[in-house]
């Protein structure tokens, strides 16, 4: 049972994400955080940086080791028109 602690930059507290293994890929971590926080809008992306080194994880295949602390930032997806999330709303 491995943990990664994440905190949204504007929030005050850390939350924990549980996964198996020694690392988690950036792609998986982003997906899991978006699921957990119910971020469904199609034009939103997350920027993940290491809380200690302030280094940004850029590549989807980057590995984030267990017990790390990361800072998460919601950012608009570049190149996508910011719409009202038509994809997810139940009409």
């Amino acid at each position, binding site marked *: 049972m491995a943990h990664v602690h994440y905190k949204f930059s*504007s929030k005050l507290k850390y939350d924990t994400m549980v996964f198996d293994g020694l690392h988690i890929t950036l792609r998986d971590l982003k997906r899991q955080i978006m699921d957990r926080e119910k971020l469904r809008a199609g034009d939103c992306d997350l*920027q993940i940086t290491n809380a200690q080194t302030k280094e940004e994880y850029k590549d989807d295949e980057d590995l984030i080791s267990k017990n790390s602390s990361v800072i998460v930032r919601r*950012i608009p997806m*570049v190149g996508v028109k910011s719409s*009202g999330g038509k994809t997810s709303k139940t009409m």
Partner: protein
Amino acid sequence: MAAKRKVEVTVPAEESDQLLIRPLGAGQEVGRSCIILEFKGRKIMLDCGIHPGLEGMDALPYIDLIDPAEIDLLLISHFHLDHCGALPWFLQKTSFKGRTFMTHATKAIYRWLLSDYVKVSNISADDMLYTETDLEDSMDKIETINFHEVKEVAGIKFWCYHAGHVLGAAMFMIEIAGVKLLYTGDFSRQEDRHLMAAEIPSVKPDILIIESTYGTHIHEKREEREARFCNTVHDIVNREGRCLIPVFALGRAQELLLILDEYWQNHPELHDIPIYYASSLAKKCMAVYQTYVNAMNDKIRKAININNPFVFKHISNLKSMDHFDDIGPSVVMASPGMMQSGLSRELFESWCTDKRNGVIIAGYCVEGTLAKHIMSEPEEITTMSGQKLQLKMSVDYISFSAHTDYQQTSEFIRALKPPHVILVHGEQNEMARLKAALIREYEDNDQVHIEVHNPRNTEAVTLNFRGEKLAKVMGSLADKKCVQGQRVSGILVKKNFNYHILTPSDLSTYTELAMSTVKQTQAIPFTGPYSLLVCHLRTLTGDVEELDGTEKNTLKIFKSITLVHEVGMVMLEWIANPLNDMYADAVTTVVLEVQSNPKAQKVMESQCVIVDMEVYQARLEVMLQDMFGEDCVEFRDSSNLAVTVDGKTVLICLETRTACYEDEGTEDDSLKEMVELAVQRLYDALNPVI
């Protein structure tokens, strides 16, 4: 990547000329208005709303791109959800510690409108951004401001104008270091039944941040719009249908109620058909409307004196679905305005399959909401539970949303002519069209130059403002008229962005600063003989004065250090300043030296001070004779000497050591100067060092 920027600049933020405007929401979209303004180290947030078409964290502006703790000031323009919906979250759940301001009416309505929103929200408690408790707790942190009242926070001056649109809506004018910025929020230049039109500020801003909801559209005339609305309602009830008007409990609803009440008044055939205003908050909301009458237009203010126009004759309040007997045609106004959930959605779902019924969308709808969706007249709609229903009821769109249209926007900008215009709060295409139209308007104009920006979310607009640094000279320095090239010296006092130059003595008159003197006292243990100390002090300097009339032995050294001989010690006292401190140091050293070596030879008194005039005269004679020749020097009397060279005679007065020509008319000063210099130099050399 729009990452949080840490700009490396050699200029500190306070002095920099760079002004930054960054929308975290409402940039090329409508919803979650949140604009960050940074200038001279100050950070201001304008509005903090949520996106009505999104839920949960998605609905928030991109707050992660700033540090909430660095925001000094938060200004809320009006109570619509897309301008203050995220405020309880921002105040209670982030590190924000600045001050928040809004108008009185806005604060009162904010309380109930957001409460309604929390109740009506369809998502589970865990997913809610904030609770009723958070909302209540946030109330204490919000401060209020009156229209036209000037406030100053952290060097930022701001005041607000009426914006029309809804009750209490304000346009904020912000001034930092002489640069003025006007944020309109949502505004309308057309007066309606209870609101005044937006004011045109008398002060011209350098930057205008303006809404662009309706882009290049032009609204239909008010009378036509009202007639169309009333006729549509009439038609629906005439065909035995139910008329649904989804609106938020407060805001444009009040305007529609006034219109309907008047129409019903004039049409007695409709008196049997009930109009319901479905809101559990109706009573509270109405009370607010009746309180803030001074934020409404003159017409209503006059009417209130006769009878309350908000007490309706033909409209009844409906607390919930349970109180509603759905028999026969009726008109129901229910919240929320975009039918995401709540009573308006429930009614819509129960009425949509009957073609006699009709729904009138009376406000602006945001992308992603049901209201926006049905405007495209789909065949079916999906209910909240996922069921599919046929959409047979009529859909009409008659907007009363009181936003500015192209004509009003153009007129507004023409009146203010701001050098920079930033468009926010508009769909991407509308905004682009508006930008193009505005640029075209001023394209050929040589005198007026306006730059139009339409940043996306998180994209910053950077502007440079070169301020002139002006310092006002005040007080006694200003008594004399100044001449170009004259030097003025004083103390430069900087308060926020104002500079003044004053003399130290004027400081207490014009500022809260005061000049004070610091007196230093030093006690040095001293057990040696007093006379020895005095003797040594006299070798240090000739400027030792014995003060009479004091009980203890007191000396004044260097004219500023007072030395008092007490039992077992010596007390030094002086007014602190760099020179006196240095003197005090020297005196202290002497005292300590004597103290540590009391058996030192008592120096002969006579060795000091007085320059022996006779010795001086003799030496002077020798020197002058060496310089000019033996024949040239002669003594006129005991205190005057004469030196003659090349026919010119210089008279030297020994007491003052000045030289002058015997013959007043002599022009060449070089002999006189040479002699005077030599005389003075010899005197200095023979004198003990002071």
